[in-house]
């Protein structure tokens, strides 16, 4: 099961926190959230993975989709604080460069 927390920081950055397993069901929800943020004009997005206990290929696909669509609009999608299992999966899929983990939601766009 998954829950998503979505908010907008004072800086205008969108912050999404998935709590639980980012699997196929969750990836569909994440895609919808990212699409809504985009149509609201939010193209700088932080995904806080501190409470994401698991990610599969569809979850990764949703994140990569977000990276691509935000960059097209001059923005970016950045991840912060991945848990150990999520970090391990980013490494075996060679996604730890395009999805380089940052340290905090607030500073993800100020590094």
């Amino acid at each position, binding site marked *: *099961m998954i829950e998503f927390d979505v908010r907008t920081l004072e800086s205008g950055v969108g912050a999404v926190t998935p709590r639980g*397993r980012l*699997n*196929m*069901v969750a990836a*569909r929800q994440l895609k919808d959230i990212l699409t809504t943020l985009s149509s609201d004009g939010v193209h700088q997005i932080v995904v806080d993975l501190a409470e994401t206990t*698991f990610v*599969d*290929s*569809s979850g*990764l*696909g*949703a994140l*990569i*989709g977000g990276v*691509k669509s935000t960059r097209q609009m001059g923005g970016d999608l950045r991840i912060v604080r991945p848990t*150990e*299992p999520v970090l*391990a*999966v980013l490494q*075996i*899929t*060679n*996604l730890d*460069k*395009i999805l380089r983990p940052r340290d905090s939601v607030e500073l993800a766009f100020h590094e």
Partner: protein
Amino acid sequence: MSDARMGDLTGHLELSAPASVESIDLTHTLLEHLWQQNPQVDPACRLRVETAAIEVMANIVEHAFKHDGSLAETRGSRRLTTTLGVHADGVVVGFCDDGRPAEIDLSTVTMPDETAESGRGLAMALAAVDELVYDRRDGRNYWSLLCAI
């Protein structure tokens, strides 16, 4: 799994459920139950099994019933059996479905580049576990994976 390998598994779990995305979470919950019952399986092995099992199951749910007509028509008749167990040598997970044959050659699967939004599942499963076997027998698909402990 009608696989001999499951024979000597004590305390294994077997679930028959609709072949739907919603059932994926159930498999994950069964795996977590298995870890509780088998604390000797270390965290790295747990993650490897979870990754491979969830990828294989997601593929079955997504691809094995693709040309079967609408979901509404077939709801409930598309079934998937998941078998999970731990034996002395490792963790074993098996899936059996009666969908169409998987037209897939596991030996040619590679990890796509970093901008790909899909096509990563089987490569992740193969990278994660020590053994991943697909078999078509008696009109059914059998997938089984092993993670040595």
